[in-house]
């Protein structure tokens, strides 16, 4: 069935057809989950955050202004929930929680496998770097790079002004690159020693 747009389903929900919310959930669940996951780094927590965000959105659907984007509105809830959850729990996350931690299982048997392994290695490096930046920076990095949002859209989600976002993104990016380079250098040394 073709997706008829967010507004169509929102109107249906407001008319009492709760089931129409299923379409909205299906449409946005992966991005909402991904954003929560990138911020908190844990699948269970990310699911909880995404679920809570959808419930909050449902409860206050009556206050939603039809002119704005439902996705932006939902991401704002996810972003705020994830940030506040991390701040209150201050849980130390394990690297195992992150995806693509397969650096040890790299195989160079053929080109395809090599490309895949390289991609996974890069992903691992990225996740190591993501672990070491603040939750707010994780959120910004996720919105900018994974969700491919513009600075204006990020501003609408986070409530931060555009220049603050640019500065924070720049710093987060620098920090991450430093961490990635450090880890790569360390890995090279270990690899050479092992040989």
């Amino acid at each position, binding site marked *: 069935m073709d997706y008829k747009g967010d507004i169509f389903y929102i109107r249906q929900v407001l008319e009492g057809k709760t089931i129409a*919310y299923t379409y909205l959930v299906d449409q946005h669940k992966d991005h909402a989950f*991904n954003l929560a996951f*990138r911020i908190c780094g844990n699948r269970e927590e990310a699911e909880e955050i995404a679920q809570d965000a*959808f419930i909050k959105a449902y*409860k206050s*659907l009556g206050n939603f202004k039809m002119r704005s984007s439902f996705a932006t509105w939902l991401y704002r809830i996810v972003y705020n929930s994830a940030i506040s959850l991390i701040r209150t729990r201050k849980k130390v996350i394990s690297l195992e929680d992150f995806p693509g931690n397969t650096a040890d299982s790299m195989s160079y048997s053929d080109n395809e496998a090599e490309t895949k392994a390289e*991609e996974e290695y890069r992903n691992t490096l990225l996740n190591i770097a993501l672990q070491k930046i603040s939750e707010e920076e994780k959120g910004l990095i996720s919105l900018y790079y994974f969700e491919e949002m*513009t600075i204006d859209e990020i501003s609408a989600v986070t409530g931060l002004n555009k220049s603050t976002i640019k500065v924070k993104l720049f710093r987060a*990016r620098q920090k991450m690159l430093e961490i990635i380079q450090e880890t790569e250098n360390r890995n090279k040394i270990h690899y050479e020693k092992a040989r």
Partner: protein
Amino acid sequence: MKKPGKFEDDILRKYINPRKIEKAPEGFTGRLMTLIQIEKVPVKAADKFRINYLVPVISGTVAVLLVVSAIFLGTAENITAYDPVIRFLDNIRIPFPDIKFDYFYNITIPRLISYLAIGFFVLTLFDRVLNSLFYKRNKQ
């Protein structure tokens, strides 16, 4: 979505694949919709305002109408609309108001019953009207 040019030559992009997003776990929608079914159906902001403020608005309006009609209609022998107000002002005694208890002594039981019956009738009518207005919403 078009991005601003500032980070276009971004080395970090080498490590990020935006298509590779983490997907929500299996059964996410089902579990969520089960929780949603328990929640009340959301209502439009305009409806919410009407529901929250209709009772006080109606009560306030009725109270104001009753006070105004009491002042302007006054007793049976009023001549002009302003007479009761003037009489009321004249009757104000400082420091103690002059309350005439004779009126209460003269009330007979049949008269009292007729007043009470009318009072009950008006209140029941008022209650029925409000109930018919809000019953549907509460049921949701």
